[in-house]
C-alpha cells in the first residue's frame, strides 16, 4: 500500500516537472488582446478567424490570444485590472478608465473616428435647441454624454438645461419606443435602428465634431517598450486586415455577420465611421495638432464629471502625450499617442 502511494507520488512529481519545464511554455512570449463588438473593431474578429493575426504573431515569434468580450466596459475594466495586454476602446474611455487608474497606455493603432456614428435624436423638434428642458436618455459618462455636452455647448446651452437619465445601451431602442422617452443620445447600430422610427430626428451627430470620438487599440506602454514585436505584429496584422476589408465585400460581409447584421447593415455603419484604411492617413491624423486640442476637450469634460479621480486638481492632472506636444502634467503621463508603429506600417517596414 505504502509502496504504491510513494510510487504514484513519484510519477506525479515527474509529470508536474515535465509540464512546468516543457519547452513550448517557455519559448514564446504570449500576449492577449480583448475587443468588443463595434463597427470599427470588427476587423479583430476577422483577423482572428482568418488567421492573419496568427500569421503576424508567428512572424515575430510571439503568441497573441484574441478574445471577444460581450460587454464593452467590462473589457476595459479587465484590461485595466491586468488581464489583457491590449484592448480596443475610445480615446475618452482610455483616458478615464486605464489612464485614470495609473495604467500607462499607448494608442498603438488609431483605427477610425466616429463621423456620424454617435447622434442626438429627438422625438419632437427639429433643431438641437429644442432639447432644452427635456429628459435625455443616454449611457452616462460615455462618449454619448460627451457628444451631448459638446452639442449643448454649440447652441449655448449646458447640461443644466436638460435632465440626463442613465440608460443601458442594450435597452436604448426599446426605451425609445416608450412614451416617457423624448430624447436620446446613443451610438450605432442603435442610431440607425432608432432613426427608423417615424418622427425620429437626428439633430446633432459626430459629423459636427469630426475626429473627436476616436476608436483605438490601447496597449500597455510598459509591455510595448519591453516587447516591440507585439506592436509590430499587431500593427502589421491590422493593416493587412484593412487592405482586405477595403477591397473585398466578402470580408465586410463576414464582419457584418459577426456583428449580428449583414453586409448592407454593416456598410450603413461604416458610412458614418471614418476608417483609416491606410496607415499613412492614421499617422497624419495622429501627428496633426488637432488631436491635442481634442484631448484637451475630452480631458476637461472628464474632469468636470469627476472621471479623472478625486486626486485630480484640474483637467491636466493626467498627462496626455501627442506628437504635437503634451497636454497636462508631463510628470504624470498615462496616455500616449505614438504613431511610430503605424509609420513603420506606412513605410512597409513590418
Amino acid at each position, binding site marked *: 500500500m505504502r509502496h504504491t502511494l510513494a510510487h504514484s507520488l513519484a510519477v506525479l512529481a515527474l509529470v508536474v516537472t515535465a509540464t512546468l519545464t516543457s519547452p513550448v511554455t517557455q519559448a514564446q512570449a504570449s500576449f492577449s488582446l480583448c475587443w468588443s463588438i463595434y463597427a470599427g473593431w470588427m476587423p479583430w474578429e476577422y483577423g482572428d478567424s482568418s488567421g492573419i493575426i496568427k500569421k503576424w504573431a508567428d512572424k515575430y515569434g510571439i503568441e497573441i490570444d484574441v478574445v471577444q468580450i460581450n460587454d464593452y466596459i467590462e473589457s476595459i475594466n479587465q484590461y485595466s485590472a491586468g488581464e489583457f495586454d491590449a484592448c480596443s476602446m475610445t480615446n475618452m474611455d482610455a483616458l478615464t478608465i486605464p489612464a485614470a*487608474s495609473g495604467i500607462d497606455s499607448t494608442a498603438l493603432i488609431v483605427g477610425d473616428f466616429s463621423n456620424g456614428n454617435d447622434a442626438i435624436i429627438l422625438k419632437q423638434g427639429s433643431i438641437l435647441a429644442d432639447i432644452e428642458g427635456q429628459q435625455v*436618455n443616454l449611457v452616462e459618462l460615455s462618449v454619448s454624454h460627451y457628444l451631448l455636452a459638446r452639442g449643448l455647448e454649440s447652441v449655448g446651452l449646458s447640461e443644466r438645461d436638460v*435632465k440626463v437619465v442613465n440608460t443601458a445601451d442594450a*435597452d436604448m431602442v426599446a426605451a425609445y419606443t416608450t412614451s*416617457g422617452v423624448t430624447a436620446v443620445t446613443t451610438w450605432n447600430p442603435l442610431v440607425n435602428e432608432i432613426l427608423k422610427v417615424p418622427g425620429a430626428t437626428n439633430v446633432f451627430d459626430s459629423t459636427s465634431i469630426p475626429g473627436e470620438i476616436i476608436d483605438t487599440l490601447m496597449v500597455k506602454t510598459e509591455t510595448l517598450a519591453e516587447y516591440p514585436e507585439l506592436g509590430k505584429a499587431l500593427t502589421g496584422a491590422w493593416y493587412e486586415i484593412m487592405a482586405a476589408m477595403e477591397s473585398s465585400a466578402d470580408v465586410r460581409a463576414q464582419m457584418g455577420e459577426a456583428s449580428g447584421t449583414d453586409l448592407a447593415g454593416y456598410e450603413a455603419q461604416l458610412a458614418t465611421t471614418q476608417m483609416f484604411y491606410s496607415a499613412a492617413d492614421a499617422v497624419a491624423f495622429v501627428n496633426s495638432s488637432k488631436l491635442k486640442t481634442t484631448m484637451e476637450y475630452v480631458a476637461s469634460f472628464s474632469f468636470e464629471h469627476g472621471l479623472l479621480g478625486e486626486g485630480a486638481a484640474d483637467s491636466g492632472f493626467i498627462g496626455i502625450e501627442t506628437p504635437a506636444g503634451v497636454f497636462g502634467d508631463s510628470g504624470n503621463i498615462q496616455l500616449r499617442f505614438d504613431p511610430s508603429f503605424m509609420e513603420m506600417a506606412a513605410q512597409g517596414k513590418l
Partner: protein
Amino acid sequence: MLRLINFQPSRALKTALGIIPFLLILLGYQIGSDIRKAENEQDKLLPSFTEIADGIDRMAFQANKRSGEYLFWVDTKSSVIRLAKGISIAALIGLIIGLAAGSIPIIAAPLKPLVTVISLIPPLAILPVLFIAFGLGELSKVMLIVIGVSPFLIRDILQRTQELPREQLVKAQTLGGNSWQIILRVILPQTLPRLIDAVRLSLGAAWLFLIAAEAIASTDGLGYRIFLVRRYMSMDVILPYVVWITFLAFATDWCLLKLSRFVFPWYHADK
C-alpha cells in the same frame, strides 16, 4: 463523552470564532491591496481602506459639487422606497391570492397552474417587455420587483394555507362558522406569520431585481450608482455600497423577524 461531536464551544468562543472569518477576509483584502498598490500606486481595483473611507466621506458626508446633494443618502432613499413599494405590493398580492386560492378550491383550480407557470418565467428575461409596458420610470422598477417576487409569495402562501390541519376547519364549521368567517378568523391569522417568513426569504431576490432595474435606466439609486461608477472602476465607491446594501438587507430581515416574534409570539413558541 469527550468526542469532537459533543464539544460545545462557549458563548464567548462562538462569537470569537464567528468574527475570525471576517477578519481573515479583511486581512486578505489588505494584503491583496498592498501588493497591487506596490506595483501601481494609482491602482483602483483594490483601493486601500483610507481610500474607501475617503470614498464614503465624499459620497455620504459632502454635498456633491454639481448637484449639491448628498448622493449616498439620495441613492439610499430612492432604492429603499422602491424596494418597500415593490415588496409591499407583492406581499399584498401574495397574501390575497394565496389565501383565496389556498382556502377556496374553486379559485385554486384555475389559478394554481397559471401561477406555477408565471413563477417560472425569469423576470429579467422579460425586462424589455416591462419597459415597453410600464415605461422607464419608477413604475417599471417597482413592477419588476412585484412580478419577480409575488408568484413565489402566492405559491408559498397557497401551500401554507393548504397545510393547515383539516381538523381546525372542521371544528370551526361545527361551531357554525361560514366560509368568510373561517378564512378571516381561522386561516388569515395563521397565514400572516408565514407571509413574513416568505417575504424574508424573497428579500434577496427583490434586491436583485431592484439593482437590475436601476442599472438599466435610472437617475438615482444604489444600483444606479454602482453601475455608473463602474464606468471608471471606482471601487472605493462600489465596495462601500455593496457593504451598505448587505447591511440594509440584513437590517430589514432582522426587523421582520423581530416584528414577527412580537406580533405572533405563538408562532415562534415551539421553534
